[in-house]
């Protein structure tokens, strides 16, 4: 495979992973108004769990890497475990951080959770091999066909796009349902929503856990491609990249999320990684954050609701003429 082919495949896979994150954050923030500044932690736990359940039993403290839960799980148990890990951790974190607390405090608590998690995983070496992280992670689905992710990046690309398409369809369907409407009511006015019989605490926890499950899945998908995972891969700042993407693309609109994820993480952040370094070492990397900041500012000034804003539902009164209204079966019974 050519270097260019590999490069494009990698970009597409990153796109799929980031789109999963965008979908999860859009459900949580765009629909339900839950500000999950700790998002990356749930992706990270998915990646770690997918890694340790495919790496096989840990060889213990003397070996080059040590970890908990070592196993050789076949596909699809690896990704199911990653998804479940994201959901479970979300449930635990959500149970104490999402209770009757103001939204801005919740955001702060979640940011702190992500800082604590990074410290704990880095320091607690027996857990996931500390700051060195885990390497040599395989691709259980590819193993069924005798291929690895590096040998057939296009196969991996197709697979990740299939995964993200399924999640996209499912979550956007849920968001359009009466349940999704309740989430938006909660986002707009919690007091009124609860006075109308909506259980705010439970709705918040539901989106938190669903988002966490998607995050875990995205982590599993990412680690099985890149083969390694360490605290360097999941700084709290990664969460803000995805937040920027959904802001730029359009909060509350899944097409906007697709656009934002194409624009921000893939075009602005991933492409420069493959470009030759300019200036002093590390300049391109730090410019990324300038780009993120600029994207926020431009967006707030020019398109405060994003490039593709949330779409308005248009209804027509039952008496009005609609396409099909004159057909016999539409006549009143």
């Amino acid at each position, binding site marked *: 495979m050519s270097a260019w082919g590999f490069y494009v495949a990698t970009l597409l896979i990153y796109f799929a992973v980031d789109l999963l994150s965008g979908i999860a954050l859009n459900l949580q923030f765009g629909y339900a108004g839950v500000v999950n500044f700790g998002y990356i932690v749930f992706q990270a736990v998915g990646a770690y769990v997918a890694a340790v359940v495919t790496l096989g039993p840990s060889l213990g403290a003397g070996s080059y890497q040590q970890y908990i839960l070592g196993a050789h799980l076949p596909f699809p148990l690896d990704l199911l475990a990653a998804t479940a890990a994201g959901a479970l951790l979300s449930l635990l974190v959500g149970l104490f951080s999402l209770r009757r607390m103001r939204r801005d405090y919740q955001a702060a608590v979640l940011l702190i959770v992500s800082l604590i998690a990074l410290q704990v995983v880095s320091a607690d070496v027996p857990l996931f091999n500390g700051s060195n992280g885990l390497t040599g992670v395989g691709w259980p689905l590819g193993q069924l066909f005798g291929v690895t992710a590096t040998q057939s990046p296009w196969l991996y690309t197709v697979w990740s796009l299939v995964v993200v398409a399924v999640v996209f369809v499912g979550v956007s369907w*849920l968001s359009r*349902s*009466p*349940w999704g*409407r*309740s989430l*938006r*009511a909660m*986002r*707009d*006015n919690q*007091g*009124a*929503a*609860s*006075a*109308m*019989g*909506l*259980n*705010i605490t439970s709705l918040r926890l*539901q989106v938190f856990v669903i988002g966490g499950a998607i995050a875990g899945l995205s982590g599993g998908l990412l680690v099985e491609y890149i083969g390694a995972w360490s605290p360097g891969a999941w700084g709290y700042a990664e969460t803000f990249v995805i937040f920027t993407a959904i802001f730029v693309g359009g909060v*509350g609109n899944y097409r906007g999320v697709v656009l934002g994820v194409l624009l921000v993480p893939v075009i602005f952040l991933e492409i420069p990684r493959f470009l030759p370094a300019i200036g002093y070492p590390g300049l391109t990397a730090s410019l990324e954050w300038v780009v993120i900041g600029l994207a926020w500012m431009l967006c707030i000034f020019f398109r405060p609701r994003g490039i593709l804003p*949330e779409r*308005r*539902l*248009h*209804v027509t*009164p*039952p008496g009005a003429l609609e396409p099909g209204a004159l057909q016999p079966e539409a006549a009143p019974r």
Partner: protein
Amino acid sequence: MSAAGQGQNLTFATDREGTSAKPENQGQPVLVAKDVVVDYGGVHAVNRVSLSVAAGEVLGIIGPNGAGKSSFLAALGGQVRRASGTISLDGHEVSGLLPHQRARLGLARTFQTTSEFSRMTVFENLVTAAEGDTGSSLKAVVLHPRRTAQREQELVSHAWEVLERFEMTQVANLYGGELSGGQRRLVEIMRCLMRRPKVLLLDEPMVGVAPHLTGKLISDLRGISRDGLAIVVVEHAMEVVRKLCDRVMVMAFGEVIASGTFEEVAQDATVQSAYLS
């Protein structure tokens, strides 16, 4: 407005609408509060206030600014915790329940500061407010799609009925945040009616509503109450109170200082001195 002007209003003869037709279930108390106390950091905003409202009855609460009227409604709705006292709704003791639990038992309310869902259309504002509690739950949506679709259809036609009654079909597609102040009030009231509640708490519902609609709203509310709904309404406009309410309770400094029919409390000397002067 001068005290004399208000006093004059108060002594108008009764011309309350719909007092002749009494429903069968009238007289059964659906909302009973006993000695409710609300504290904000040691200050009694509501001090041992009691009420009992029956199905088919409209109770007005009046009183000067800061009397504790909104705080009392919040205690009834569950938005603030009462420090002591009991509240029973349709036979259930609810004083320990959360707002959504009380709502599911048949309580609906509006707020003094309008609380429309600002990034949802008027139509969506209405269909979100559904009778019954779990029809929009994740479980119902995923496991019972057919039942959910049917429920949606019912909600949609109910929403059009309510919109028509309030002459709001023209704004069905506007976002809550795009409405005028009076329209927002109406959306709140319509949302409550969508839920077919047993008890309706209204906090200054007529503020900003155009005069021709005020009259219509009064007769609508009376009509709905006659069908067996208990209404508690906090209101400053005496004309509205006089036409709308069967009984009036006057609050000042967190306490009830008088109660009775509109005419009775209007004659009361304490009320005159505490509220009207």
